[in-house]
């Protein structure tokens, strides 16, 4: 059975590109456009990995991860944070919220795929 990855970002195009890359590698992908939207879509189904941006409207990535880790079903779900070079502080914050992996923006689809497959094999 294919593994499920959730991508949370307010940029639709980014979600699309990452989605294409991941789907073609054999993952199932669900999308969320911000933290609030993503939480509403997580209803207990199995998700193997979450990729989340930091800066998003409605609910930012760090609050989202904090909330995610409160839900028993997703307590151990690994999270990849998308940071930019200038967000060293955010990286620390994200780590303490529970996101132990990160990919620096801007990235190539292949880089994202490599990071994902380090954590979850398709």
């Amino acid at each position: 059975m294919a593994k499920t990855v959730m991508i949370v970002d307010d940029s639709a195009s980014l979600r699309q590109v990452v989605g294409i890359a991941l789907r073609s590698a054999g993952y199932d992908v669900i999308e969320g456009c911000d933290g609030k939207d993503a939480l509403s879509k997580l209803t207990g189904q199995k998700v193997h990995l979450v990729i989340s941006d930091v800066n998003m409207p409605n609910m930012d990535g760090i609050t989202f991860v904090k909330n995610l880790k409160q839900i028993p079903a997703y307590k151990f779900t690994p999270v990849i944070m998308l940071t930019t070079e200038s967000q060293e502080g955010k990286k620390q914050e994200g780590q303490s919220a529970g996101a132990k992996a990160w990919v620096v923006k801007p990235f190539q689809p292949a880089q994202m795929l490599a990071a994902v497959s380090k954590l979850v094999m398709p």
Partner: protein
Amino acid sequence: MEFDQALQTFIMESRELLEAMEESLLGLESSPDDPDSPDNRDAIGAIFRSAHTIKGSGGLFGLDGIVAFTHVVENVLDRVRGGEVPVDGDLVALLLSCRDHIGMLVEQIAVDAAAQPDKETEATGIMLLNQLKAYQAGAKGTAPAVTGARVQSQAPVITTLPSGGTVESDNWHISLRFSHDVLRNGMDPLAFIRYLDNMGKIVHVVTLPDAMPLVPDMDPESCYLGFEIDFHGDNVGKATIEGVFEFVRDDCTLRILPPHSRIEEYIQLINELSEDKIRLGDLLVNSGSLTRKELDEALCLQALSAESCREKSPTQDICQLGEILVKQGMVQPELVDAALGKQKVAKENKVQESKLIRIQADKLDQLINLVGEMVIAGAATSLLAQRTRDPALHEATSTLSRLVEEIRDSALQLRMVQIGETFSRFNRVVRDVSKEIGKEIGLSIGGAETELDKSVVEKIGDPLMHLVRNSMDHGIEKAEIRRQRGKPAKGTVHLNAYHESGSIVVEVGDDGGGLNRDRILAKALEKGLVTANQTLSDQDVYGLIFEAGFSTAEAVTNLSGRGVGMDVVRRNIEALRGTVEIDSREGAGATVRIRLPLTLAIIDGFLLGVGSASYVVPLDMVMECIELDDAERQETRESNYINLRGTVLPFIRLRDQFRELGKAGRRENIVVVQYAGQKAGLVVDELMGEFQTVIKPLGKLFGNLKGVSGSTILGSGEVALILDVPALIQRAVSKEAQLLAYGL
């Protein structure tokens, strides 16, 4: 003419070679145990080369005496190099004497190229040649040839590793120990290992369940496993493998050892690296055998161990980075050795590069003089430009004066030499004197890279020699007494140099008995240097030993005698505009501290106005300027001190000091100056700011003038006197003390 010049070059070159030879011989003497160690082999090689070069060049000049003698020395050295003659203390001593003899011959040539050695030198030569015979080929009693030394020194093939087992195959070896939290953080250890398999082939995995507790104690959310992985990958580097574990890097201990076939490759890479970066860690990282992250970790460990070392015992050496890297299993020892070798070569090349240009000292002096004139002319130009109030001209001159300042600094830099060379000469002195007086004494040197003016270096040698000999002879106790006092039998003399607020401090210290205050005081009373009711600080008392006529062996046995007048030392230092002071702790040792100005020719000055005259104070000594307001002027009319933020600041009115005529200015300022830890104020009318100053010495006629150390020419062409701040401070402080003593 040209031949003479070449001869001069030969003499200079020989002096340098002989110095290098002496250094190597002393190095050999200090660690003779292992004649086959690479260091000692290098030293022997260097000694041989020195002798060989001197012989070779000497032949070109027809210096038969030098050639004949050096030839014999070279023969013996060749046998030493070949391992046919063992190195021992006697041989080193003999070779040192030979080196001195060659030096003597060279110096005689330096005086007169056609000179024949005098009788005494000739006799020494013959005696040394006789002694050398014992070591020459065919002589009886020499040790049988020790062969095989060279074979041993070839690189051995190392197959075992200190940790992580053996890497003989073409496989990388990866040791992984996950932390307990890795699962809780949402990481799946197996996912990383699976990803690794994508990049190459995992040949073998051993799972280490050793850390697994018994079932009742086990937490299913914790990870207890470790893995040993053999991995085969083409075109995979250490950093790439580390990258696989990027996300768990903080949650695991990771050690990656390259395949054996890679080691040679790395060594080659290390050797091919450019020589810009010569730190061990950088070399290893650049070659790819160490990752940046591992280096950071090792440096962290080093810092930690350094801290704990300091707490436990201050004498213990800090762990070397190389050792840590090997002990942690981050890098194989061969690679560390290769990098260290590379480091050494790079350093040597640097040193050689820095020796490239040789300039005659007088050319340099001329340059400095010209720069001095330029500084004055520049100041005059700036002044004129200011008067014209033409902004463009003003701009141009300020650029010019900035450049002049830079030229001045670099010109002065040319004269700066490291004090290390002067210091290392004392290795020999300490060795010889300690043998002569039968005490075991070592020399420790600090701050060898401190730079000071060449002319100062030349003049400081003699005073240092006096001080070192004094320390050894009278400061350091006999071995029995040292043992009784609980000190190591071997005494130490320290030489140290460092910069301190515009001056250079040179220290000569020992861990001997220190000065005996009571005895010095008694002697001073007897000589009438002090009176019985004077209160003297320790500093004052110690300073008494620098008074003329104070040195009789009986008076203060632990720091005088021998006819070495400490007053001569002080006079020499004062001639360099320096000062001397002594720190001493009874039973623990004494330190003589010499304070010297950074340069003798040009300084940054601070221009002051009193009445119609101008004075200059070295800017480095100025601490602050404060205005003396009317109330304070009234208050201080009679006294000679003010309250500066709660401390007493004695001051001197320059107007009174130099009998400046004319009415006092509408305003007065106090310039607070500092020297050697003491502060005083100078009361002046006007503050005129920073000013580059070329020091012109005062004529002989004014040699005894107190409070003035030189003169300079201002941009306007007027003459300003440069104040002798140490003397003025001394005066202000002692005046103050006198007043206090009389209860005023």
